[in-house]
């Protein structure tokens, strides 16, 4: 085979292919997530970046990876029976603990936006890559489900949109169910109840709060809503004698405070030294005490505080999530992408909750104590 023939044959084999559907959106989600994380870590790691650029780069990578990992393995949840969202608002002054309507033995879902991870468990079904659109139109035998959403709202009522990803009990595939809901909001909280009305897709308009019911990495439904989100963080860089000893000390402190890290990453540097990062999401009440205690296990250059408003970035991801949902309804494809974005939203939600601080501890070996 001569050169020219080889070239022709290679070109024949390696024909141009198009990027998969949704590729650009997935890229932009990653980039947005990176932007958020970089901004939220800029100040915290500023000193580290000045002193040790390699570590700072590694740190950024680790954090970005952590965001990505938060999206891996996510599955859109589905209750044991079909979930439907509704249009009729609850009466005024209804609270999250006063679920007003349960239709017989049908399942009830209560979602509270203030703490989407503290929701009653539901049965999780395996995710399906493709959703037959025809299934989504089935409305018979659909049980009523109550979805109650509690969230502070502005003085004027806002339009609220509920978006649920459901599973058809017959077909075994999740079915997107989209509804528009306009709740009363006279007491500072908005609510929603379900109904069995047909699937309806209505474009969102600005100023609407967007709700998405989906599953996190634990079998609970989550509600994503458009609201102001701020990540408060505390970080400390600690130089220690040996990493293993330091980790044992941190483990002791974790037990003492009753906390555990949600992310740990290790970086082996070219000079053979090790840097370990552990991050936590802790209640404000113990965050300061914990980080102060941990900083005492070695030589620390002080605790850095950082506060970043991620509202805009979060809303952008929410928009992309909505686009995926609409695409899902239209084509039945993209469940994996939807889950991944949902995972990222959950990740950010967890860190931007009121009353918590993100604590990041960096351990660097090389100093004897």
């Amino acid at each position, binding site marked *: *085979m001569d*050169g*020219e*023939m*080889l*070239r*022709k*044959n*290679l*070109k*024949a*084999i*390696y*024909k*141009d*292919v*198009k*990027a*998969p*559907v949704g*590729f*650009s959106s*997935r*890229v*932009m989600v*990653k*980039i*947005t997530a*990176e*932007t958020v994380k970089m901004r939220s870590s800029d100040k915290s790691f500023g000193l580290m970046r000045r002193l040790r650029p390699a570590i700072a780069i590694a740190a950024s990578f680790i954090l*970005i990876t952590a965001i990505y990992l938060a999206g891996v393995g996510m599955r859109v949840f589905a209750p044991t029976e079909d979930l439907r969202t509704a249009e009729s608002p609850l009466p005024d002054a209804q609270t999250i603990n006063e679920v007003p309507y349960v239709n017989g033995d049908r399942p009830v879902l209560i979602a509270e936006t203030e703490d989407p991870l503290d929701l009653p468990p539901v049965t999780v079904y395996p995710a399906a890559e493709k959703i037959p659109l025809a299934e989504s139109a089935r409305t018979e035998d659909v049980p009523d489900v109550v979805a109650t959403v509690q969230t502070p709202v502005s003085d004027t009522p806002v339009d609220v949109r509920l978006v649920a990803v459901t599973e058809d009990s017959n077909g075994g595939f999740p079915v997107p169910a989209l509804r528009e809901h306009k709740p009363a909001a006279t007491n500072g909280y908005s609510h929603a109840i379900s109904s069995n009305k047909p699937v309806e897709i209505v474009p969102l308009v600005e100023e609407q709060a967007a709700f998405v019911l989906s599953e996190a990495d634990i079998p609970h439904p989550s509600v994503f809503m458009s609201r102001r989100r701020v990540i408060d963080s505390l970080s400390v860089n600690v130089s220690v004698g040996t990493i293993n000893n330091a980790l044992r000390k941190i483990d002791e402190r974790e037990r003492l405070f009753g906390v555990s890290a949600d992310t740990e990453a290790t970086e082996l540097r070219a000079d053979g030294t090790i840097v370990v990062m552990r991050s936590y999401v802790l209640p404000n009440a113990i965050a300061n005490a914990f980080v102060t205690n941990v900083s005492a296990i070695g030589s620390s250059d002080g605790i850095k505080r950082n506060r970043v408003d991620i509202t805009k970035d979060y809303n952008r991801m929410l928009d992309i999530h909505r686009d995926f949902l609409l695409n899902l309804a239209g084509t039945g494809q993209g469940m994996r992408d939807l889950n991944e974005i949902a995972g990222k939203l959950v990740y950010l939600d967890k860190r931007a909750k009121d009353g918590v601080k993100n604590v990041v501890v960096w351990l660097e070996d090389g100093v004897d104590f």
Partner: protein
Amino acid sequence: MELLRLNAADIVKSASRGDIASFEQLVLMYQDKVYSLSLRLTGQAQDAEDLAQEVFVRAYRYMNSFRGDSDFGTWLHRIAVNTWLNQKRKIQPSSAYSLDEPVYSDDGEVKREIADMSEEPESVLLSSQMSEKLHRAVESLPKDQKAVLLLREVEDYTYEEIAGMMDCSVGTVKSRLSRARDALRKSFNGYAEK
């Protein structure tokens, strides 16, 4: 279509200033180009997507360092090749995909097609079996040789461009290309002898 009317250089410039919307336009403009090369390099659709995504994330991260000396697409290809070369080899070595394996495109599953070159005498012998053989031979090449071969023979980059993309000399490029071609010839001679 609207995108095509926009000046790519202006979009790149705007993206370099941190405009995320402009960067999104660049993603839309170059996603097929980047994904195509990624698929050729990795041989797996999922790996290709991961690589292509990483390319754009890195491009966004380092937009400031793009001086505009080369085409933006070439710069993206450079990132793709280097990212792929620097990736650790995965534990399962069989990254080759079957030519019978469908490609997932906008239109759903599409069967891979081998170009019909029956009108060209030289290509008469290129049966699907031979294509499969050639494909496997390419997949079995060392990474650096495979990269040079694909960039030169499929992507039509010049030796100089490839050298710039891979941070090596033109001589190294030629040497790797020569070794890659030899390996493929040997593979095919063996096939022909059978």
